[in-house]
């Protein structure tokens, strides 16, 4: 079903926070939004690979589901 824009924005915010907490994602105030999204896509790929999900770089349903699982607060990867 198409996702309402507010929901999409909320999910994106949630994903960003998750990747910051557990995958060392640092949101840089890039001049170009596209560059920022690229970096995030890389981190999503890293997270999908860690959990054995299909590696697409996209915030799809399965990836978001996994992000919403209760879990340990220690990061999965670190710089």
């Amino acid at each position, binding site marked *: 079903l198409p996702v309402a824009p507010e929901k999409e924005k909320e999910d994106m915010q949630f994903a960003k926070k998750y990747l910051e907490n557990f995958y060392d994602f640092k949101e840089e105030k890039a001049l170009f939004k596209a560059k920022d999204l690229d970096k995030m896509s890389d981190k999503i790929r890293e997270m999908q690979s*860690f*959990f*054995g999900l299909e590696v697409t770089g996209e915030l799809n349903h399965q990836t978001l589901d996994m992000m919403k699982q*209760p*879990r*340990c*607060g*220690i990061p999965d990867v*670190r710089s």
Partner: protein
Amino acid sequence: YSTFPRSPKWEKEDVTYGILNYTPDMPQADVEEAIARAFQLWSSVTPLRFIRVYDHKADIMISFAAGVHGDFYPFDGPGGTLAHAYAPGSQIGGDAHFDEDENWTKFTTSSGYNLFLVAAHELGHSLGLSHSNVFGALMYPTYVAMDTRDYQLHQDDIDGIQALYGPPRESSAFPTKAFPQQEPTEMIPAGAPTEMSPREEPTEMTPSKPPQRPDDCDPHLTFDAITTLRGETLFFKDSYIWRKSPYFSEIEHDTISSFWPSLIAGFDAAYEVDNEDRVLFFKDDQYWAVSGYSIESGFPKPIQNLGFPTKVRKIDAAVHDQNTKRTYFFVGSNYWSFNEKTKSMERHYPRKIAADFQGIGYPIDAALQKNGYFYFFHGSNQYEVDIKKKKLIRIMKSNSWFNC
């Protein structure tokens, strides 16, 4: 498996832990039991020993807190992050924090989080492991609800922790090998010729393991000691406990170390003084006291403290009579009577078992007081005796309590 950068680990085998506070979700004794069991998982596959201390300077401090709690990683309310822990090191190093906004439970339920399971995971961090991407491993980052009564570490967890600390001291020179969790383990004495079953991978020597727990309904089952404990009845043999509770029908299987990691297996005797909420365990010429579920400090103590002559080096069985506040100790063909009110052995003892408890076999392996009867266990026989009349009522199989 993975470790933290530079693989920090404890540079000693005796690691201390302390419990700073408790969650109101569970009785304190259940919190202590869950934490002790979690430590026991790791001590059973490494040379590490975990010793509980009661001041704030333990290597690993365990606490419950909600939201902001003094480190740079505030918790996030119900769900989400459940707990976190720090890699081995001084100060906050090794400490484990649990989010008090979660509902912590003793058993796995759909509405809460099993404290033993989460604690075992966090203690993996406290010992130096980071997350594993192997699903089913304890160090996998997300919580996976499961029945934890016979929980065993995944091979990935064992490989990880042994990469840091090596195998347990007693085992053979080869790392412990855990069979896939569902398959029964085969008991092969070290050095004995091995027949390779298709399920085994070739090893030069399979490490010897503690004797396997006998079946509940094994007609030859005998016991080392038996005692009541807060309404339950615990049957001990080697390191195993059969636990009969009025709250659920089936017999639960535990190990002594899952309750009391610092107590050795193979008790000689045990009895509960119910009005003191206290159980005493005996092994050789020493005894320990447990209040509630916690071992009292200052033990073990020599059994001579109770008034036995020095020639008595061990006791066979003990049973407490709630009505007369007397405890009977059985040694060979004799028995003593101990007054729990005056904490002293009574005069004119020892007496002959055969004189006062006619018809029962001895030496007695274990003794139990229940529902106004004494039950004396000798080999695979159990003698039910009317406490007041000291009269033998009937003889049963020792494992008649196990619904065989």
